[in-house]
């Protein structure tokens, strides 16, 4: 079972308390009427589906209920970090350094 750290509750809790919410840092087009079909497809459907460290969203559904972001290695399922929604992407090289 994954153990996930909620940055709002500041607690590390079992996976069953959380719901996955897919890739993070995908911004909704700000001018919908001017957005092309290609850009809508990119926003709605295309995903990087990374094998390795992936920026992703989780929601603490059975806790505080809030969305937050995480970086998790999709090969080992190990969480590299979690951080609050709205904070900038953490730099990958600083996160993966300790792993080698």
């Amino acid at each position, binding site marked *: *079972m*994954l153990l996930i750290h909620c940055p709002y509750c500041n607690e590390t809790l*079992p*996976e*069953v308390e959380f*719901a*996955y919410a*897919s*890739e993070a840092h995908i911004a909704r087009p700000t001018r919908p009427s001017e957005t092309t*079909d*290609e850009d*809508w*497809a*990119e926003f*709605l*459907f*295309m*995903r*990087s*589906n*990374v*094998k390795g460290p*992936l920026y*992703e969203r989780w929601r603490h559904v059975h806790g505080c209920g809030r969305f937050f972001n995480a970086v*998790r290695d*999709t*090969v*080992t*399922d190990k969480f590299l970090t979690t951080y609050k929604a709205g904070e900038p992407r953490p730099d990958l090289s600083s996160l993966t350094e300790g792993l080698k």
Partner: protein
Amino acid sequence: MTRFNAFNLLKNAMSGHKNWTEQWPDSQPKSEYDVVIVGAGGHGLGAAYYLASQHGITNVAVIDKGWLGGGNTGRNTTIIRSNYLYDESQRLFDHSVDLWQGLSQELNYNVMYSNRGCLMLAHTVHDVQSFKRHVHANRLNGVDNRWLTPEECKEYCPPINIAKDARYPVMGGALQERAGTARHDAVAWGYARGAAARGVDIIQNCAVIAIRRNADGSVAGVDTEKGFIKAKKVAVSASGHNSMVMATAGVRLPLESMPLQALVSEPVKPIFPCVVMSNAVHAYCSQSDKGELVIGSGTDQYVSYSQRGGLPLIEHTIAAISEVFPIFNRMRMLRKWGGITDNTPDRSPIIGKTPVPNLYINCGWGTGGFKATPGSAHVFAHTIAKDEPHPINAPFTLDRFRTGRLIDEAAAAAVAH
């Protein structure tokens, strides 16, 4: 290739079965092919087989990073059915069920296709309405599917608990009698043997590292662990790794790769005559010819390439099995495993051309592509050979995510397989 028949069986029995020839050679890559297929699962091997047998294209290599059939083909729970909601899906999956009927004869290989029937249980009013809608949609297209009362469900499959006081009582079920199961490994082996006999090279333990493109953008070939292989056409059928492989050609896909797990019990005498799926309680079950119960449910919730999956999901699955079939609640489970499934947002596959000339993709089979192996391989081979889709896979384009013409089986069924 030695044909499997009574005479050869007898002949080889004389020498203690020690002189059978190998079923396919372990090929090394040539420098150039007409078609390179990435991924030696059922879909890739099947496409190679149909390219050779139906389109006369035999200068073909199927390349796999592991051993053939070691991906989801060899990890799945082998449910075969075609009772999908939309016309496009029904045509695709029923085409496959048609091909399953004669596949053992066609391949001269016993794929153990057994049309033992698949019963999908309804536990809520919504289930009843939705499954009846499926039954009607199927019957309009001549696809077998019919409605059973709870008592008829119990008669068809006695281990089902239809007690009124069950936590999720059975309110009926949709039965497709033409549905069933097959032997997954045999499907990969049968296609591999048939393709190799027609000249196809099957190259194992050789990962494709990147797809190389010409200056004009078209496909040049593939860089592999065993060097560069030139190819006029490249076709990708790498299930969970499709996004990674296609990204090397600059093509983004609407896929997320998630672990799907399955487990088997200790073997017992025949007790479970068909396949039963319960999407609301969330588990499905059949019994293999070896006697094990073969059990599965949905994917883990997160993207992962770990081919393992988490235990909470197994607990959830077993809880559901114990609820629907209380008779099994003291059965011991022998082993569990996971495979990495590539899921599209509408839960329908993508089979067709890509923005890159001479690069083809067969992906997004997610949790339910074993049943489609013959049909998908057949129309994919057509697409590669003719550089245009077969009418059956024409709606399953990558472009539908731009136009919005989705084939939304995800909304229709909520659960796949």
